[in-house]
């Protein structure tokens, strides 16, 4: 098989990238390992998607459906392969795939990698205690509840106040599962403020800040979880232990960009742990573009869609003969935890995503010749700014700084 562009993953980023490339009259193959397109959107039945991109509020499945319709509209250009797993990507621009039809090779001119992220599993947290059933990552609990129609337990504690954690606290409550609290290691909530209000406060679910799980108990099913307060270095403080008698523990403790398939092909960014990209979506390997949560963990699917489209457009230009350099590095400076993209190619304006390092009341963002002031910043909410090309002229590197005002 031959194609112009191979898109790996048909979640928000992959679908947008495939459609963008098809609009440039290229032949696209999109490989999705699940049985349907849409990715994690399919299990996110809550609303709040699309406010930026569509200027209306949609559920995850509704948001996915809009792009699925587009995939169908461009069916002449886009071949959608579901239940199709990419086994390998080779240096000679071939990929080895497997599906219900068998194992086959695909020759492509460019790849857009949009494999998303995986959840940090319970095992990696090294929490002492037993290894009972009843411990789920938030995404697994969400899939079991929303796709497989299964209650995950009767009485639950949530660890991690990231968005999925808070959304699952509400979801479990709505389905009659008692949620006894949400535990957060940081001194502030890990997710969006709107979720703290809509998912926790509105349902009287307590949020335990600066706290962590120190032990899980239960030889068969989970029976008890011990939570303790932590000091500034996140070390549990002896004597602060609290016991929660629950049969279910739901973990929302972080997402890890899925990069393993590209291990030896592209460079990674050590802060995002994702694929290092320029503002064109191009990786360190010129024919491989990437977008979405495999590059950095985004707050909103709307951002992911935009980045997918951008990667689709530039990958198309690459296939048509345009060449871009990776460009100058973008580096986090004062009070900045991480930035995306990781390089600025000098082509086009720069849409810059960043997270501050600590909560800040007032701050001045400085990037090259660009300045903008912000209020009430928190690390859990991504800042997005569009910086005109002319403000970034004649730089060797782009330092991103947040000055406290």
């Amino acid at each position, binding site marked *: 098989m031959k194609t112009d562009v191979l898109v790996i993953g048909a979640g928000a980023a992959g679908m947008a990238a495939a459609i963008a490339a098809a609009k440039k009259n290229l032949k696209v193959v999109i490989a999705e390992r699940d049985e349907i397109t849409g990715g994690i959107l399919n299990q996110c039945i809550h609303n709040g998607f699309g406010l930026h991109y569509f200027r209306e509020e949609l559920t995850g499945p509704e948001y996915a459906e809009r792009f699925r319709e587009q995939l169908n509209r461009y069916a002449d250009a886009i071949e959608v392969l579901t239940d199709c*797993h990419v086994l390998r990507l080779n240096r000679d621009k071939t990929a080895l795939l497997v599906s219900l*039809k*068998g194992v086959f090779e695909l020759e492509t001119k460019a790849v857009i990698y949009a494999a998303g992220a995986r959840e940090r599993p319970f095992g990696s947290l090294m929490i002492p205690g037993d290894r009972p059933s009843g411990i789920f990552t938030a995404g*697994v609990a969400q899939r079991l509840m929303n796709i497989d129609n*299964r209650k995950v337990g009767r009485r639950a504690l949530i660890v991690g106040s990231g968005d999925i954690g808070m959304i699952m606290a509400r979801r479990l409550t709505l389905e009659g599962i008692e949620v006894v609290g949400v535990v957060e290691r940081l001194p502030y909530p890990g997710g969006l403020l709107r979720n703290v209000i809509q998912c926790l406060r509105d349902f009287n679910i307590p949020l335990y800040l600066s706290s962590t799980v120190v032990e899980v108990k239960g030889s*068969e*099913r989970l029976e008890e979880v011990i939570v303790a307060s932590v000091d500034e270095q996140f070390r549990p403080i002896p004597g602060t232990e609290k016991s929660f008698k629950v049969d279910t523990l739901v973990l929302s403790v972080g997402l890890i960009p899925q990069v393993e398939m590209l291990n030896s092909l592209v460079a990674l960014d050590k802060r995002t742990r994702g694929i290092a990209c320029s503002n064109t979506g191009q990786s360190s390997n010129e024919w491989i573009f990437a977008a979405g949560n495999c590059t950095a963990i985004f707050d909103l699917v709307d951002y992911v869609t935009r980045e997918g489209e951008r990667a689709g457009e530039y990958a198309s230009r690459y296939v048509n003969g345009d060449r871009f350099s990776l460009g100058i590095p973008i580096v986090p400076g004062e009070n900045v935890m991480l930035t995306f993209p990781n390089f600025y190619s000098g082509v086009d304006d720069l849409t810059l995503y960043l997270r501050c390092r600590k909560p800040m009341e007032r701050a001045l963002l400085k990037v090259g010749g660009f300045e903008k002031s912000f209020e009430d910043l928190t690390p859990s909410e991504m800042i997005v700014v569009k910086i005109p090309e002319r403000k970034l002229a004649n730089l060797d590197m782009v330092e991103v700084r947040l000055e406290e005002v």
Partner: protein
Amino acid sequence: MRIAVIGAGVVGSLIARELCRYDVEVLLIEKNLDVGWGVTKANSAILHAGYDDPVGSVRARFCSTGNEMYTELSRELDFEIKRTGSYVLAFDDREVPVLHRLLIQGEKNGVPDLSIHDRETILSREPRINPEVKMGLWAPTAGITEPWMVAIAAVENALENGLKLFLNEEVIDFEKQGNRIVGIVTKRRVHRVDVVINAAGLFADEIARLAGAEYVPLHPRKGQYILLDKKLGNVVKSVVFPTPTEKSKGILVLPTIDGGLLLGPTAEDLPADRKNDLTTTSEGVQAVKNSVLKLVPEIDFSLVVKTFAGLRPESPQKDFFIGKSEIVPNFVNAMAMRSPGLTAAPAIAKYIAEEVLQQQMGLSLTTKKGFKPTRKGIRRYAELSLEEWQRAVNENPSAGRMVCFCNEVTEAEIVEAIRRGARTLDGVKFRTRAMFGRCQGGFCMSKILKILERELKTDASQIVLKSPNSWIVDGKVRE
């Protein structure tokens, strides 16, 4: 004649399989929901060379022989072993004589090809090892395997040769006539038997006491482990031990069969009433971290996949307790199978069948016609050639549907594992390696639950992780 083996760990399973060579009825009785789920499920998975066991000990008698038997056994039963070799490393001058003592002990125990390597040789073979190393004892016959897979393979083969397997049946009593046992009472039924072999792992002392036979008291020795991502699979190529102490072989660094990296174990002696204590502790995990950094100074602990604990049966004698009872004439013990129990198991199985039962107890066992010594493992499609895989998908499309992405396990493999006896999530995991990888089932657990539900024609709420009350999901969200 009916011979019953109590305990389907690696020792009991191999004994049961060995007995299936003869014209007798063989019963294997296990209290867990699957085979290989006691001591066998969580240990270092090493095929020891045999230099570590005192000359003249029962351990020494069976270790190097068992080690050698694994080559043919793994071929017959189609499970994986890797002869990685092992190093015992000395980091200061006081430790060097210990290596020489182990070398001499090993040679007396019949361990082949032992040698002492200098620093340069060690670092050329294992460049990630702490450069402060002085000397190392190299044992090329040491290796690694998946212990539970040995038990699974042995039982599958035995079942094909007539074994009767009883899972989820805890032995609670014996019926006796005089000193002889005539019946094994489990929570479900009474098994009429002529001979009983006690391979009940950590609980073998309690079984022997119930039977009125000799035993050595057993207590659990806990070992905590850290398993790391496949990305670190090449940190070491061989099994790397520190210089041993009186108590144990120490905390080690080794590759796993499927390409990961395993660190551990601690050696924590627990009282005899904590034989089910599989908890990890922050102290234990920290002890593992601290110790291994002396062997390999750079390990990226952000790549931890999981921490877990196993228990091994220890006795005051620190030696196996194997043989026929003098009190109960039809009762045989295979207990106190501490390290190197896994390595010794095939040799012990043969010894019990040939010497104990036939020579010492005078049972006349005739070889069964048509015994089939081989078993085929579940095909791992991702390891086949592309042509073979394509042919398999043509016959069965589910061989092309990837379910576990981390370890590349297809739906066909999961269905086959269920056909062969997996009834639980752990049953699937330990047979196929699905859910064993870096996402720990994040992507595939819910899919596997549905496959189990479909294949077993049951409801997901009835499916458990590993034991009768370890339910996964409750009722439906919407009817």
